[in-house]
């Protein structure tokens, strides 16, 4: 890069100088580059997760039955995440929530009337709650189904959802999609939630 006249012997030690300076600067440079690249990857992954939650909740609210494998595949089509019908480094919980009317055991509370799961259930539990196996999937309905039995009466059907949703009117349903996925170790602070995973939730 620079021309060194051969009659200047002192230059030899200056070459070492440059290397040492580079060595000083390199960590900062590498850190900045790594930060930009990994930050970009995390953002990209997180946007995929958010979009997946939106698509899932939107389809679910329009009546798509995710108990059927074909519909699971349709949702997963084209996403770059590792989620499959029953495995992968992530999971999608689809929950339909209604208000329990007066005179029922769960009166005044939001309850889970339907639950569908796509992906690896061991990866994360639903934050909304999990109806116990005696009432979900509905034992009296033909399989596969995601319906919950006696959701107005069973304690395990009670949903844990944000207080802003508690004004849901009687007879109205809220369709919720939760998506959990591994971050592959790329995280910044507490922004993406729990260690090693990111999540997004959509309420339709």
């Amino acid at each position, binding site marked *: 890069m*620079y021309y060194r006249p051969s009659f*200047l012997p*002192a*230059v030899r030690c*200056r070459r070492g*100088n*440059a290397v040492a*300076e*580079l060595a*000083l*600067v390199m960590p*900062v*440079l590498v850190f*900045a580059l790594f*930060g*930009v690249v990994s*930050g*970009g990857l995390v*953002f990209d992954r*997180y*946007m995929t997760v*958010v*979009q997946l*939650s*939106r698509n899932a*909740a*939107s389809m679910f*609210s*329009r*009546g*798509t*039955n995710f*108990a*059927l494998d074909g*519909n699971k595949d349709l949702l997963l089509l084209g996403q770059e995440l590792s989620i499959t019908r029953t495995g992968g480094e992530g999971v999608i919980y689809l929950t339909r929530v209604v208000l329990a009317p007066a005179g029922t055991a769960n009166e005044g509370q939001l309850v889970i009337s339907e639950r569908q799961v796509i992906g690896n259930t061991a990866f994360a539990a639903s934050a909304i709650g999990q109806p116990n196996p005696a009432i979900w999937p509905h034992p009296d309905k033909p399989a596969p*189904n995601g319906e919950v039995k006696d959701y107005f009466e069973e304690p395990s059907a009670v949903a844990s*959802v*944000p207080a*802003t*949703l508690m*004004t*849901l009117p009687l*007879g*109205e*349903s*809220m369709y919720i999609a939760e998506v959990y996925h591994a971050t592959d170790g790329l995280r910044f602070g507490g*922004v993406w939630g729990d260690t090693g995973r990111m999540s*997004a*939730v*959509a*309420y*339709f």
Partner: protein
Amino acid sequence: MQRHRIHTSRRGQIILLFALFIGFLISFSALAFDLGYAMVVRAQLVTALDAATLAAIRYAPEGPSAMSDAAQRTFSANLPPGRLLVSNSSISAPTITPDNGAMNVTFNGSANIPTFFARWFGTDSMTISAQTTAARRDRNIVLVLDYSGSVSSVLPDIKQAAKAFVNSFSDQTDQVGLVIFSTSGRIDYAPTKPFKSDLNAAIDAIGSENYTNHAIGMYYAYRSLLELNDSLKDMKMNEIVFFTDGRANWFPGRFNVTLGPCSQPVVDGVYGIGGGYYSRVLSQLAPPSPARPPVVAGCAGWASGTNALQSIQALWYPPTSPTAGEIFPEGIALAGFKNSAPPLFDNNMSSAEREQIAANVVDNLARKVRRDSVLKPRIHVIGYEGSSTLERSVLERLSNCGGCANVDATDAADTTQAKGKLVLASNQAQLMQAFLEVSGFIGRITQ
């Protein structure tokens, strides 16, 4: 010496360069990180707006302030303050614009986010905004209610559920009508708007009587859609919601009668297949409106035990009265019999066989109705199982719901025809839920 000074200046060259470029580096970090973060927040904002717009559309029947409330509730559930470090997230009031048989509903949303790098350059926060629009097609809906004798014990519940059903649509944009049937049927309230107060009164006035004739109910439902004076009806959603509590045991028909005083080439009528007799009763039971077909001389009816029907032939063509040829000019046959040679129809035919004929008639009629390529009617069925066992397969065919587990068109029994919803109520307490499930389903369709 001058040369030497130049060499001295080369000492610390990399650090100097780095110091010069650090500004650019941070700027690019700012772009990459802050804009990436902004895009993530925008994705969540769009989710919140999409959900809010759909929620608002479901509340369209209750007016703009109810739409705003629903949108606000859904929006803040999806993007509460603090989520993704967002502050001041807000959603506008809906902008509603009518558009050829539909209404377009638009919301604007915005949220503030902090910046991480750009703040070093004096930008502490950014405002993210987005807009979503969804269209709600206006609805033309005909509610078909079974008021046969068997519903009498639950009639108050049915009326209550039916009123909740019709009240869940909009007086401003939707037209809702009522058809009732028992042995015969009629258009009780032609679809119109505003409909709420008159239609609620009409529902309250229903009393129960007689037998069950599905096909006549389906026929009048379709007829009321056809007669609807609405130049945009082909752009709207045309829905028939069919409630019944049992199997059909009567059906409308057209017969050739060639016996004694009743010798007539064609006789339109309503035919019963219960109680061990057949009877032509349309003349007696049809309401004065829209028009009562003339009584055929000498054929006022047949009594039990006679063999007057032994030469009745070929059924069933859709009723052409009161205006012949108006709806089905080609006269499509909607039912056939297992025996081709006379007697086609005799008193030894079992109730089950007679119910199959009635089911066959209404099934074929429903398929015929759905084949209308202009109105593209969809048929939804609500079944009440409290008074007698329902024939589920018939109701599945009426709604064309296939397995009925989901709304995918590919799962329909006949994929070339529109798919409806089937909801069964197994007791009185589930009636309200069943009606609201169908109204909710119709309310959620936004395309």
